[in-house]
């Protein structure tokens, strides 16, 4: 089971892709993923029901969030209404410790996105703030990375003993599936995704999508 764990639709202010167009592209170009996770910026999409699209295209479509902290951007899986009350997803100055604690309290999982990226990657802030507590997984393959940013992420993961996930960070249709995560077993719901991530039975992969 291969899922792209990091993507954005037009629900994000900088997203230019409709979810249906992601689905069409995946099928038309035979992109080698079984589904994707929409991790909209600074919000959780409570409103959209993508189950008809998932059924129509035979894809798994799940939801998460990407929030902003002093350590950069953090993907949050397992978002619940209670977690959304625990901190303000819209803020760009969240404390990672608060996000980690809230996730622990509510059964969610925080995963730093593109940790090798300047400014908004965790690695850029360790020298200033130290190695954060409560992180076990980072995004080692990000489809929007430039230069050696993914190598930096892999190095960080190796140094700290983090597991790695992959996601395209797609904002436009043609970028979906550039990076993804292979799971040992099936993942068909947000709860199963959370369980699989917590179990650690996965690997980050890069895909040839052009």
């Amino acid at each position, binding site marked *: 089971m291969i899922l792209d764990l990091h993507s954005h639709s037009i629900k994000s202010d*900088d997203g230019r892709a409709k979810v249906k167009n992601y689905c069409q592209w995946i099928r038309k170009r035979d992109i080698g993923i079984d589904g994707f996770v929409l991790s909209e910026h600074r919000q959780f999409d409570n409103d959209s029901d993508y189950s008809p699209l998932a059924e129509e295209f035979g894809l798994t479509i799940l939801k998460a969030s990407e929030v902003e*902290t002093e350590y950069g951007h953090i993907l949050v899986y397992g978002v619940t209404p209670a977690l959304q009350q625990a901190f303000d997803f819209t803020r*760009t*100055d969240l404390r990672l410790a608060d996000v980690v604690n809230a996730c622990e309290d509510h059964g969610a999982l925080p995963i730093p996105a593109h940790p090798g990226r300047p*400014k908004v990657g965790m690695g850029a802030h360790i020298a200033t703030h130290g190695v954060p507590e409560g992180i076990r997984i980072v995004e080692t393959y990000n489809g929007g990375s430039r230069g050696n940013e993914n190598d930096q992420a892999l190095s960080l993961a190796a140094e700290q003993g983090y597991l790695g996930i992959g996601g395209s960070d797609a904002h436009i249709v043609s970028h979906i599936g550039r990076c993804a995560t292979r799971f040992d077993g099936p993942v068909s719901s947000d709860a199963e995704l959370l369980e699989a991530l917590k179990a650690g039975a996965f690997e980050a992969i890069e895909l040839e999508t052009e």
Partner: protein
Amino acid sequence: MAESQMDDIEGARQRFLNHPFESKSFEVVADKLAQYAAACGETHPRYTDPSHEDFQATPTWCSCLTPNRLIPKDFPKFEGFSLDGGKDVQPLAPIRPGAVLTGESMVHDIYTKTGRSGRMIFIVSRMELTDQDGTKVAVADTRIVIREDPKKDGAGK
């Protein structure tokens, strides 16, 4: 990151959001509507031919109506590079020649995001357009993006 780093944004939001600060009138002239439609590549006579029975402005026409100011005079100055972040128009009713529109301007939203270049501040300037009969015909948003100076202490962290 200190909690205070967003105090500037929170303060501006509390002080300015959705408080009208300017009202300006616009006369709707048939030739101007047709010229705008042609410039956009529109071909339907409803938008390009003033003699058409249903002649009206194209849905995005009011994006070319500009207030005297996009933000209030006393709006805080955020240091950085300003960029045009684009425009959105919500058409609510047909706009036809002869109408006199009143555009009421306000700051609709102020928010931030962080990226490779640091913090960016988004200011959404909104103009609500009402015709002479009091019908709201459109809402036009203009986004201003301010990319903070990366050298500024604390910017973008």
